[in-house]
């Protein structure tokens, strides 16, 4: 019975991707507030996509702000899987249709040069495993109608992930202050989001440690070469066709993305 509803929920989300029209909240058919079942739904789809040939290139943390956690009634972040086809080059133009109900948030990305496959990785393990740091814009989206999500919906829906844009200029971890780095995101020169590293679980490396431990727990340890999106440094913002968004993170530089105008 449980298995059937997990498959049904996973199918419902895949159908939303395929048709481009959002589905009803999957929490309606899943056990209330069970994160375990929600991750089982996510896992079914991850396996499905891997079998289809999509390449896993890392992971993302979501719900890394205290405010967002309390809005969703949880006290921990969540995670999703990044696939290679979700990557967007710095400054590239993308169609808003590639992500359902898109919103953007600015983040710190880590790229690993060592596996994080030890038992209970610590921040020392994460620092040792990090090759470099990049500024990132995550384009999140939701396959659930009107972003009407609770914690179960967003976890089942791969943590509402969509696309991610990485800056091209790597910085070394020891050269940046990831806790106090200021963040400002602009659309046509207008500030749409402002924040700092502290907003992400107190420090983006705290989110990285949580991800590293969680992926060991679920038997898919993070590997050398993986990209880790650590979580938003400020509020997320809806985007529309024609928008050009730039995020600047102090010490890390800038990253941009353009959303194609509708008539193109």
């Amino acid at each position, binding site marked *: 019975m449980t298995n059937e509803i997990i498959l049904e929920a996973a199918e419902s989300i895949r159908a939303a991707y395929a048709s481009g029209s959002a589905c009803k909240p999957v929490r309606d058919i899943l056990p209330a507030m069970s994160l375990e079942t929600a991750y089982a739904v996510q896992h079914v789809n991850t396996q499905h996509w891997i079998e289809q040939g999509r390449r896993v290139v890392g992971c993302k943390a979501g719900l890394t702000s205290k405010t967002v956690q309390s809005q969703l009634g949880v006290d921990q972040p969540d995670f999703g899987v990044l696939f290679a086809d979700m990557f967007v080059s710095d400054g590239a133009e993308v169609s808003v249709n590639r992500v359902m109900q898109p919103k953007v948030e600015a983040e710190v990305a880590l790229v690993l040069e060592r596996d994080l496959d030890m038992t209970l990785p610590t921040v020392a393990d994460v620092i040792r495993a990090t090759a470099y740091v990049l500024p990132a814009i995550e384009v999140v989206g939701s396959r659930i109608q009107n972003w009407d999500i609770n914690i179960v919906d967003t976890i089942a829906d791969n943590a509402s992930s969509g696309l991610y844009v990485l800056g091209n200029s790597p910085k070394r971890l020891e050269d940046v*202050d990831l*806790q*106090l*780095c*200021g*963040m*400002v995101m602009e659309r046509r020169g*207008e*500030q749409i989001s*402002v*924040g*700092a*590293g*502290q*907003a992400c679980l*107190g420090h983006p490396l705290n989110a990285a440690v949580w991800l590293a431990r969680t992926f060991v727990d679920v038997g898919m340890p993070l590997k050398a070469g993986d990209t880790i999106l650590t979580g938003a440094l*400020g509020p997320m913002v809806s985007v529309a066709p024609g928008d050009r968004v730039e995020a*600047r*993170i*102090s010490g890390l530089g800038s990253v941009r993305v353009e959303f194609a105008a509708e008539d193109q």
Partner: protein
Amino acid sequence: MNMSNQEITELAAQVDGAALNAQAIEQLSSLGIDLSIEQAYQLQSLSVARRYSRGEHQLGVKMGFTSRAKMIQMGVDDMIWGPLTSGMFIEDGGEMNFSHFIHPRVEPEIAFLLKRPLSGVINLAEAMSAVEAVAPALEVIDSRYNNFQFSLQDVIADNCSSSGFTVGAWQKADVDISNLGMVLEFDGAAVQVGSSAAILGNPYRSLVAAARMAGEAGSELTAGSIVLAGAATAAEALRPGVHVRVNTEKLGVAEFTVSQPLSE
């Protein structure tokens, strides 16, 4: 509105009395007093003059409404400003006497120390070359009106809610301060996270505006005076006994403790 100097002088005494006695008053606008912006600033000057007659002296000026969001919220398209006096000064690491305030709030700010006077229309380079040092700062705002509500004229007449400020250690003005992460902490826990970018995109723009407003008022920002450039985040309500600190990227901290109420 036709208003005699006598009437404005009497209103100035009321507003100053509200600050002196820590007793909220009704909004002038809701009493049917319809001031022009010019009259509101005239009232502000007369009110602050009463502080000077009690032995306080001017230490600088503060800028208000320096974020786009705040200007839109207030329906205005320019900043406001008012004098900072010696009676408002709280030593860095010192104590703020809660009983002197009505419903105080605190904001993280950037402070400038001028080495040369500024007045009139200047450019960014002129503003930057007049700065001796920059520092992280905390401003305590405390509207003298009921429920912290006011019209534009009300808040100008009330010296822009200025009531206290602390400045941290001064730093050489050779750092880029346009996107510094700022974390406001109560008892060591982050309560607001933002960036100096929220201050007009760059706090130096606020100094340019302060010079312009000084010129328009026929005065100048004097050498040796302090300019508080504006808030980097929303204000946070203060409570007795709380330790308040701002931690700013590259600039460090400013802090004070709010006094405990006297025991009965």
